[in-house]
């Protein structure tokens, strides 16, 4: 009889430990995938000054767009919170899209090897950002699933773990960049 009680007690303790660890592992995965997005955003921001240099050489008077990119980059590097980072990141993305659209008007710029290489690198990073976001949302989903389904929901309440919000793709990013031809 006493052995039954002891083994059931051990089992209960093990279940508590299991769920505690599982929630910690899942939420660590979220933090890790967030830093993945950060790494890629940072990489993109680092390429921007070089890009602007080559753009300035051929399209000096596109001051507005150049300023827009510089500002977006500054905002991204200065952003502290996640929503601010995402917002700045998508601003930079939009601004970069306009730069590449404008480049169409400057055949010499388009033929510039440095510019082409940067354009290529930026589009590669673009893909990585998209996949990093996807993985971030995947991680949130598995965390939230554990937090909201039975019996995980009990332990989530017990350990004070709340659901986490998904990463929304900001509206500006879905819009097609406007380019004025005047």
């Amino acid at each position, binding site marked *: 009889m006493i052995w039954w009680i002891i083994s059931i007690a051990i089992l209960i303790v093990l279940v508590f430990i299991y769920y505690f660890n599982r929630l910690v592992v899942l939420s660590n*995965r979220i933090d*890790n*995938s967030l830093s*993945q997005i950060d790494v890629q955003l940072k990489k993109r921001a680092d390429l921007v000054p070089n890009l602007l240099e080559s753009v300035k050489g051929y399209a000096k008077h596109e001051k507005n767009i150049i300023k827009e990119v510089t500002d977006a980059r500054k905002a991204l590097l200065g952003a502290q919170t996640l929503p601010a980072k995402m917002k700045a990141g998508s601003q930079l993305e939009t601004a970069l899209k306009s730069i590449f659209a404008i480049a169409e008007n400057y055949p010499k710029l388009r033929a510039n090897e440095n510019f082409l290489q940067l354009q290529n690198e930026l589009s*590669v990073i673009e*893909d*990585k950002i998209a*996949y*990093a976001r*996807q*993985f971030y949302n*995947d*991680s949130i*989903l*598995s965390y939230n*699933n554990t937090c909201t389904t039975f019996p995980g929901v009990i332990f989530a309440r017990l350990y004070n773990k709340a659901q986490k919000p998904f990463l929304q793709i900001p509206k500006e990013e879905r819009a097609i960049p406007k380019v004025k031809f005047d």
Partner: protein
Amino acid sequence: MAEKISFQDEIQKNKIKSFFLIIIIFVFFIILGYIISAILDPSYFFVIMIVAIIFSLSYILISYYNSDKIALASVKAKPASQTTHREFYNAAENMSIASGLPMPRLYVMESHQINAFASGRDPEHAVICVTSGTLERLNKQELEGVIGHEMSHIANYDIRFMTLTAVLIGMISIIAQIFLRSLWFSSVSGNSRDRDGRVQIFLIILGIVFAILAPIAANLVSLAISRKREFGADASGIKFTRYPPGLISALKKIKSQEVSEKDKHRFPKAVAPLFISDPLKKKISGIFATHPSIEKRISKLERM
């Protein structure tokens, strides 16, 4: 798509299967040692058994830690270069981010056909190898589809079981070949030398045992690496890319490609089941096929 990919069950199954495979191979060598000692000289029983245990342990350990290298060497794969295989690196980096797995080491093998395989003992020691034809003929989305498929083999530990099977059982069939040939050789030249009768009988029995074992071993490889795994990897691979048309169009290209006889020689029989599609393009379908038919895989993907 809403359900998060969970590999836990498959990982567990693959680990258990790999473990049993190792036990079976170990027992096989012990029995072999026992037979040898019984035939040769029972007084050497302990010596032969110790040798058999040491041999089988080292054989298994070497295979376990080097199965990926053996598989890569058998197709003469070379490490991919960051500069000339840029697209390959980008696709693999993307899939590694999307799956949350560490970046695998990348290899390229010389072959005109489109094909790829993954190997290694766990995600931390994984390799992905593609043919040079794959890099020439697939576009970005198709390449990502193929790499995503390989990534899910890595994620659910298929690679450990598949490569271990190919290497361990493949080696048995090589040993069988050696014995069979030496048997034939010794029976031809046997008369000239005065051999011990016991050794002669021993070789004959061993030869017969291996003659039976070799084809069984070859079939075991294809049975163990079941066709179900390919469907599974297709399904979870597109959860990484979120773009089924990429893999579908890659499979269509694989289906329509012509494979020359010369090209088939680059793919040893034992490692053929590791590839995304059967590199030997055998006409057999059904229970002895190593891969499900590509039409079936395409139609399953199209329904997702």
